[in-house]
């Protein structure tokens, strides 16, 4: 694996930081792997520096047994085009059939997968990926660099509408020409069948992360949607049955589509089959309780007491998943900064976790960078300032303000609970908050339009990833219509910095600008929960709730 003859210059620097204690173990691991050091090597590196063995849990498998079927309760959705997937659940159904170039694990460390290794140039604008050799498609073809190129070109085709195009990596591969975005010629260069180079128009740090974004599965060029009709991937499993809304069954791939023996390129997984059974979010835990399944996609915080009372092991993961009660900065009354600031000041984020998440989760700081992010810079704690809020309102001439927030409970009823607590808190500052609750599907119709709405944001491994998606001018999902050149500039700088220490420093202005502009009330970083029964072994819950079952096994 560690065949790369040249180490990125930053790796050495990171080693120094780790040795000095300026950088934590996790950050070290994350950053050196980002820089192309293979994970085992990185662990070994860290172990040698810190003087103890740091073997990740995922690797410590003793007495693992082969065989069995893992039954999972999850919404079973259709599998049309992985590039346009909009639900993690869809990608989970596909994840063991088709694979990514990289793999980000539960600790936010990105490992090689179909890419054996990678290497950026010094200014992070050119990334060279060495692809794994000997990887076979389920139809018997060999996996080559041209396939990757085909995929990237496809993602960048505006006609496809893939959300991948909005990722930093890929948005740095397009140019505007005649009002349409077009891929820059030569942005993807196939050097040889197993080497591919991405040439970016600006420095991007998160290329390996972006390549594990859930719609970036590498498909065979023969692909035609729906995927479920012709499920050709490189994974250890193949799709045996799909009934949307009922069941999705994956079976170990042993044969190619034309009947020849198929061998998975990696270690042989333990499970014979993976079955996803359709259960609504509300019913997954009860399905688990009745013993119908071995594990579930997730359960909500309301169900925690129920889960704790059940036999089995509750798995909790800190994440960067959050609720963003964002205000559209170009719509009255939120076009007035003082109004936004008043609302933010009147809210008490610190009180939230106890009220809505039974004391779990991290307090949000209204800048959309989570403590689990490597580049998180700790700003001074937010203080609630009711008087200040009142004053601001008076200045703005908006005393007795009445605003309405749209809540879709897209991530569970706790959204509504948050809104209700906000209502109580805002009342103290003389602001009247009306809560307009609507079904999730309705909310997704209006989430980019509502002036004031509570939107759920999923976990992304790096803080900058969301910021550039949601707050940069013209960002694909800029729901707040936030438009601040200073912020864009600061963010660019941070994104160009590989050094985590330096980047953290660079994040300070980014966070500060966003926080001061009071674009959102972001009350909490929620944990995610799932549960496994006693037979499930080596199950690692992932912050983005993606399923990585290649190492999971079942005891009798």
């Amino acid at each position, binding site marked *: 694996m560690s065949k790369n003859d040249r180490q990125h210059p930053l790796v050495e620097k990171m080693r120094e930081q780790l040795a000095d204690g300026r950088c934590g173990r996790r950050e070290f691991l994350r950053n050196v792997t980002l820089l192309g050091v293979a994970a085992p090597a990185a662990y070994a590196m860290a172990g040698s520096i810190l003087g103890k063995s740091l073997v990740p849990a995922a690797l410590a498998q003793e007495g693992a047994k082969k065989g069995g079927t893992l039954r999972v309760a999850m919404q079973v959705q259709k599998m049309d085009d992985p590039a346009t997937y909009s639900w993690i659940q869809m990608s989970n159904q596909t994840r063991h059939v088709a694979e990514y170039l990289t793999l980000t694990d539960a600790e936010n460390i990105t490992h090689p997968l179909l890419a054996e290794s990678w290497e950026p140039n010094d200014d992070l604008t050119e990334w060279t990926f060495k692809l794994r050799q000997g990887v076979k498609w389920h139809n018997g073809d060999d996996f080559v660099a041209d396939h990757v190129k085909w995929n990237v070109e496809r993602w960048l085709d505006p006609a496809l509408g893939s959300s991948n195009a909005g990722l930093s990596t890929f948005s740095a591969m397009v140019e505007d020409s005649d009002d349409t975005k077009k891929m820059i010629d030569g942005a993807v260069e196939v050097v040889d069948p197993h080497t591919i180079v991405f040439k970016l128009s600006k420095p991007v740090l998160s290329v390996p992360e972006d390549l594990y974004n859930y719609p970036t599965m590498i498909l065979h060029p023969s692909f035609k949607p729906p995927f479920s009709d012709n499920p050709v991937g490189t994974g250890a499993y193949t799709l045996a049955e799909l009934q949307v809304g009922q069941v999705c069954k994956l079976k170990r791939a042993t044969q190619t589509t034309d009947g020849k023996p198929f061998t998975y390129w990696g270690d042989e997984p333990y499970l014979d089959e993976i079955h996803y059974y359709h259960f609504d979010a509300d019913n997954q835990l009860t399905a688990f309780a009745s013993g119908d399944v071995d594990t579930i996609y997730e359960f909500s915080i309301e169900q925690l007491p129920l889960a704790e009372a059940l036999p089995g092991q509750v798995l909790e993961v800190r994440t960067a998943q959050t609720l963003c009660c964002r205000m559209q900065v170009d719509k009255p009354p939120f076009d007035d900064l003082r109004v936004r600031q008043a609302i933010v000041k009147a809210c008490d984020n610190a009180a939230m976790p106890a009220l809505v998440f039974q004391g779990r989760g991290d307090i949000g700081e209204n800048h959309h960078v989570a403590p689990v992010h490597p580049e998180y810079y700790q700003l001074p704690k937010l203080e609630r300032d009711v008087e200040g809020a009142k004053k601001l309102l008076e200045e703005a001439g908006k005393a007795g303000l009445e605003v309405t927030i749209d809540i879709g409970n897209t991530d569970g009823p706790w959204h509504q609970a948050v809104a209700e607590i906000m209502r109580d808190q805002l009342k103290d500052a003389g602001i009247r908050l009306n809560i307009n609750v609507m079904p999730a599907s309705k909310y997704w*119709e209006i989430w980019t339009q509502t002036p004031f709405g509570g939107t759920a944001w999923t976990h992304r491994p790096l803080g900058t990833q969301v910021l550039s998606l949601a707050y940069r001018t013209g960002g694909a999902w800029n729901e707040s219509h936030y438009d601040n050149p200073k912020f864009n500039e600061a963010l660019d700088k941070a994104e160009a910095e590989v050094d985590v220490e330096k980047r953290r420093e660079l994040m300070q202005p980014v966070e500060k600008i966003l926080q001061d502009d009071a674009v959102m009330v972001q009350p909490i970083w929620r944990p995610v929960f799932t549960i496994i029964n006693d037979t499930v072994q080596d199950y690692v819950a992932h912050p983005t709730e993606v399923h990585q079952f290649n190492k999971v096994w079942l005891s009798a």
Partner: protein
Amino acid sequence: MAILILRRLVQMALIIVVASFLLFLIFDTDAFKKKTAIAELGGFGVSSLSEADYQKWLDEKGLNVPFYQRYGKWLGDVATGDLGRSYEKSTAVGPLLLDRLKNTGILAFWVFALMIPLSLVTGVLAGMREGSAQDRTLSFIAVFTTSIPEIATAILLTVIFALGLGWLPAKSAMIGGFNWRQLVLPVLTLVIYDFGYVARMTRASMAEVMTSQYIRTAVLKGLPFRHVIVKHALRNALIAPFTIIVLQLNWLLSGVVVVEVFFEYDGFGKLLLEAALFGDIYVVQACTLVAVVIAVLSQIISDVGYTILNPRIRFA
């Protein structure tokens, strides 16, 4: 008789045409189509749902064709047995619906198998001696059970038998294949709710017959009470419940929705609700079609049955 059935069938066809036309009209509104598009393209996909994308989606689904043409085509397809494709589940509606109907059919079979004898016996026993303690007790039980909404019955049964005593599974997803134990609670819920209604109707019918003059004639002929009940009263008293029981088929299509959703039983009702919430036009259309056909068929059965059971009409 033949003309009656023929008239009914013509009426059914007309109703189906009108009903499906109305549904098409509703589903053809822009708001609805957009909603479906969004639901289908998924939550986060909305951001990229530009007008052009929407048009493309319409194109892809063939929804930009004027709706009367689509309606005509749909009618033609239905006539040839093609019910269209589900947007949400990307499969043909026909087999999907058939599978779910089979599941609901199993449920319905057991509901009827339990409910009919139970309610008829209760109703007859209560109506036989109107006003007696026996009548009052049975009547109260019947009112009581019909008064508890299915959702409440489902809850109580689940709490007692699944959560409390642990005898039965709480959910009926049947993911490990058919399991009769999972069928018990949904069937019980429906039976408990419906039995009271039919029993009350039977009781009313029985009570009315018992006060009729021909029963007096029979008693005053010196016939034993048993004989009066069995030979004179039942025949007349069961005509009305028969039609009511057949019409319960129609009711059941409504009743199963909440039960199937609560117990996660994959049947017709759950399919319908999911499809409606998703905006899965062809599934809703097909479900409605089936529902209307079942409703009208049960109407025909009940009419024909009534005619056969009631000599006053049969030999009119």
